């Protein structure tokens, strides 16, 4: 590679890596996790490394500080940091940079802090080690750092143990740790993936602010294209351990030149454009990296592949300064960008978008009325309180959580209702309540006209046939000791639908519906990829010919290119079989893509609901507006100016007085929000918003996705 992207701006690069290769010895030969990756970061720039699982992106990040175990064999042609050659002897030199000149922030803040040590002491460690501070000096500096990363009450947080902090607070504390010794380069490995979008937005804002203030360079690893576009100046797209495209982020995202980059962008559902035509998933799966093909590594999955692709592809500089590993790059970049191809679809396609409000009971498949669920926490004795203030010292007062609080919802036949909200808002609990996997504490639930609220197990049986569920993690919901055939067949036999040869034929038919070949019936779950496993879960759910399926974060664990295929499949099944879905997701883009109607949940209650097009455009509930503002969407980076931000995090539990969103609401009116339950306003039939703000004020809010949004 002649000119790494970072080198063009501002002289000598801070970090310059050329030909980085990481290999693992496996029983089947050498596995090349990273193959000849080259990149550079100029001072003050942010480089994003984007890729799906198995791309080797985290491996690259770990190599910089030599955090891979001794089993990883690493080599490079050039590896310099601030002009210092780190190749000789490589590990010792890179170890010496750890924590002060290069600092790292890990993916899951929940596991990156040591549970047995106070947060403040963990932040102080590098200060004591690299800056020679005493305990007291370090403790004072820790408070400053915590205040700088926006933590209120730094003293309390410093004295706390990690489990006492929320995810966002932990990530802030980890960023404070990384900042401590004023490093030149900060490596962030999926720093916001484990967080809710609103918290993610806070952390990204924080990073932006710190970067400017400390002249930090950033290496940002993520699978999320939207996040990368928001944070990074340059981007490296990694596929199967190779950098397939590299260049300025704006260029790469606007006119991707490598078919894989195009595929990624085409797979991406967007909240700004709901119910559009189909996504374009990338077919096939990652090649076996122990036997990588000699030619283009992407050839097997590439729609542009031809004979010339059998030759090894080297990174090639394009005229605009990008480097691409594809000999047809110019021709491909000249084609229409995948984003625009999607926007041509009519905005309100779909049967229900123009439909009647979903409140009337007539024809409702699922009718949920004022359903609530209160959980008691802890074991039998958890509620014991010792109160010596007088009388008998023992009281029992079991801690309670009101997970779902008086929710009413309708799902009509063939309709997709999206349920969105941050973690802990009660959306999964609601899904389980509807299927009676857990008992509601109050309210009424009817499925296809049968009241199931107090129904016995026997009475539930016919209803169970009608309503099925697909869970987030197929690994835990598919029995690893059964073949796919047995798994899909089980509900057939359980409900007496088919037996013997008939069941056999039905299994093949069901596998066909989810686009799996009949041979899959003989395989075991561990032989399947994540996407294939989720197809099996869907096939199993379809076995009883249900009218309704609850999809609980069913695509959240999948890579975007695989998720796109599953979303397409779900859309097809809805159209062909007329199944209704309750689509539970934290991802507004997924919801927007598939749902006819959307319900937004906050702290156990629905704060806004209505047809997707109306929920995704003003008037918004302030919470919906904040959620939409928080989602990083590729191609809509410029809307940063009008973003609203939520402070703090969702705190569940407890009784609610006034508006349940009042403590975080950016548009809070005043005391009325704390004391009075907000009224429900209906800007359009079937579109309901629970807020004290007058409708005119809500209508006056500019659309989050700007004029570009189809429903502005």
């Amino acid at each position, binding site marked *: 590679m002649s000119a790494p992207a970072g080198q063009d701006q501002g002289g000598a690069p801070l970090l310059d890596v050329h030909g980085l290769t990481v290999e693992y010895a496996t029983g089947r030969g050498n596995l090349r996790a990273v193959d000849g990756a080259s990149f550079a970061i100029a001072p003050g720039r942010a480089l994003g490394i984007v890729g799906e699982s198995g791309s080797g992106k985290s491996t690259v990040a770990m190599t910089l500080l030599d*955090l891979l175990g001794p089993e990883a064999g690493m080599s490079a042609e050039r590896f310099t940091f601030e002009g210092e050659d780190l190749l000789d002897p490589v590990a010792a030199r890179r170890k010496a940079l*750890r924590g002060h000149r290069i600092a*790292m922030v*890990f993916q899951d803040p929940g596991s990156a802090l*040591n549970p*047995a*040590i106070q947060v403040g002491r963990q932040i102080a460690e590098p200060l004591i*080690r690299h800056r020679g501070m005493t305990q007291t000096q370090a403790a004072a500096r820790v408070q400053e750092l915590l205040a700088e990363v926006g933590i209120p009450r730094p003293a309390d947080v410093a004295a706390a143990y990690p489990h*006492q902090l929320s995810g966002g607070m932990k990530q802030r504390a980890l960023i404070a740790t990384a900042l401590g010794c004023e490093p030149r380069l900060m490596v962030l490995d999926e720093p916001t993936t484990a967080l809710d979008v609103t918290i993610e937005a806070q952390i990204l804002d924080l990073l932006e602010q710190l970067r400017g203030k400390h002249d930090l360079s950033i290496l940002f690893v993520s699978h999320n294209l939207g996040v990368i576009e928001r944070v990074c100046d340059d981007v490296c797209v990694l596929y199967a351990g190779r950098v397939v495209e590299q260049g300025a982020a704006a260029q790469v995202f606007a006119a991707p030149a490598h078919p894989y980059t195009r595929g990624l962008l085409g797979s991406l559902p967007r909240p700004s454009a709901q119910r559009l035509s189909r996504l374009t998933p990338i077919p096939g799966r990652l090649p076996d990296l122990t036997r990588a093909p000699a030619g283009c590594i992407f050839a097997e999955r590439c729609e542009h592949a031809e004979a010339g692709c059998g030759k090894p592809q080297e990174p090639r500089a394009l005229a605009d300064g990008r480097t691409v590993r594809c000999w047809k790059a110019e021709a491909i970049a000249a084609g229409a960008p995948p984003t625009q191809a999607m926007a041509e679809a009519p905005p309100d396609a779909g049967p229900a978008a123009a439909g009647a409000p979903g409140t009337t009971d007539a024809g409702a498949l699922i009718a949920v009325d004022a359903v609530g669920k209160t959980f008691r926490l802890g074991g039998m004795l958890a509620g014991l*309180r010792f109160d010596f203030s007088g009388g008998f010292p023992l009281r029992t007062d079991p801690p309670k959580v009101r997970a779902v609080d008086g929710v009413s919802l309708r799902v009509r036949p063939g309709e997709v209702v999206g349920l969105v909200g941050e973690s802990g808002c009660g959306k999964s609990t609601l899904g389980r309540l509807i299927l009676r996997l857990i008992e509601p504490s109050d309210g009424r639930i009817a499925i296809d006209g049968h009241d199931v609220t107090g129904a016995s197990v026997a009475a539930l049986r016919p209803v169970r046939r009608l309503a099925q569920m697909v869970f987030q993690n197929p690994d835990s919901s598919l029995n690893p000791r059964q073949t796919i055939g047995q798994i899909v067949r089980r509900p057939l036999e359980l409900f007496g639908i088919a037996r013997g040869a008939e069941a056999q034929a039905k299994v093949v038919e069901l596998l066909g519906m989810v686009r799996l070949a009949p041979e899959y019936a003989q395989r075991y779950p561990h032989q399947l990829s994540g996407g294939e496993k989720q197809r099996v879960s869907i096939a199993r759910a379809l076995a009883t010919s249900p009218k309704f399926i609850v999809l609980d974060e069913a695509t959240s664990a999948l890579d975007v290119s695989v998720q796109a295929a599953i979303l397409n499949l779900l859309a097809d099944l809805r159209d062909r079989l007329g199944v209704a879905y309750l689509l539970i997701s934290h991802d507004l883009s997924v919801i927007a893509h598939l749902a006819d109607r959307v319900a937004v949940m906050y702290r156990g209650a629905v704060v806004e609901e209505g047809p997707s097009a109306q929920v995704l455009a003003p008037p918004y509930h302030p919470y919906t507006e904040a959620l939409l503002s928080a989602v990083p969407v590729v191609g809509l980076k410029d809307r940063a100016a009008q973003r609203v931000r939520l402070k703090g995090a969702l705190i569940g539990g407890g009784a609610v007085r006034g508006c349940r969103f009042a403590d975080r609401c950016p548009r809070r009116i005043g005391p009325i929000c704390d004391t009075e339950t907000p009224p429900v306003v209906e800007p359009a039939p079937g579109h309901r918003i629970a807020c004290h703000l007058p409708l005119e004020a809500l209508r006056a809010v500019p659309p989050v996705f700007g004029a570009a949004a189809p429903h502005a």
Partner: protein
Amino acid sequence: MIGYLIQRLLTVAGILVVMSLLVFGITQVMPGSVAHMILGEFATNDQIAALEQTLGLNDPWHVQYWRWASGFLVGDFGQSLTMQRPIAPLILDALGRSAALAGLSFGFVAVIGLWLGILGAVKAGRFTDHALAIGQYFFIAVPEFFWCIVLIMLFATTLGWLPATGYAPMSDGFWRWLSHMVLPVGTLVTGLIAHVSRLTRSAMLEVLQSTYVSAARAKGLPERTVLWRHALPNALLPAITVLAVDVGILFGGIVVVEVVFAYPGLGRMIVYAIENKDLPLMQAGVLIVTAIYTMANLVADLLYAWANPRIRYGRSVA
């Protein structure tokens, strides 16, 4: 924390009551009456009846139970039938000797077991680890009594370095005391050390693969600090639970070892009581062992709670 403590203490009390009922019940269903045993086989029926009357053996069972159990609460364990002496001092002496055996063994198991476990985890996949693993599996698989015999044959019979059996009090000199301890302790600890080190190794390995250990390394902390400050405390939590379970195994082992080495401890005394149908002695012995075992578990639970910040500090800060 206080609530937790009270909750645990209540449980312990409950277990002890149930155990005492069980132990008491055994004497009720065992063949032959206590009076019969005291008077010997040539006693007449009248003599037996008279003695049963004086001992209160004709009272309803709950009266007898209460008399027996309340004695325990004030330290009166009754009279030994075969030795014609009060049980409390007998048991106290034997308990002291057993405690020396158990304490010494437990100390070795905890220190050496944990240390070998950490060593195995740090050197995972290398020669040291493999060599340790072979030794550990071997010692786990072979039962204690085998080591009794091997050790006695080697050190006592063949080499003549150590006494084969018996006990010498500390007043006979420390070295003499110690020479009698070596073989029993050696027998007891081998299997347990292997067990504890195996489990510590896997706990430690898991911790070493955690993100917070990577994070500690990424901070530039020396490997020593990473290991002792970041990894070990978290690996010790599961080890505490294992050690508590091993106390039970240790007690079982002590009975065997005391009998084989003719070591005058509590285990041997209980075996003696059973063989000679000395019911009061047996009851007292078994109850004491149960009490100690429950207390050991209580201590382990409290230690666990104390070492685990999640239990120690529940409330959230932000």
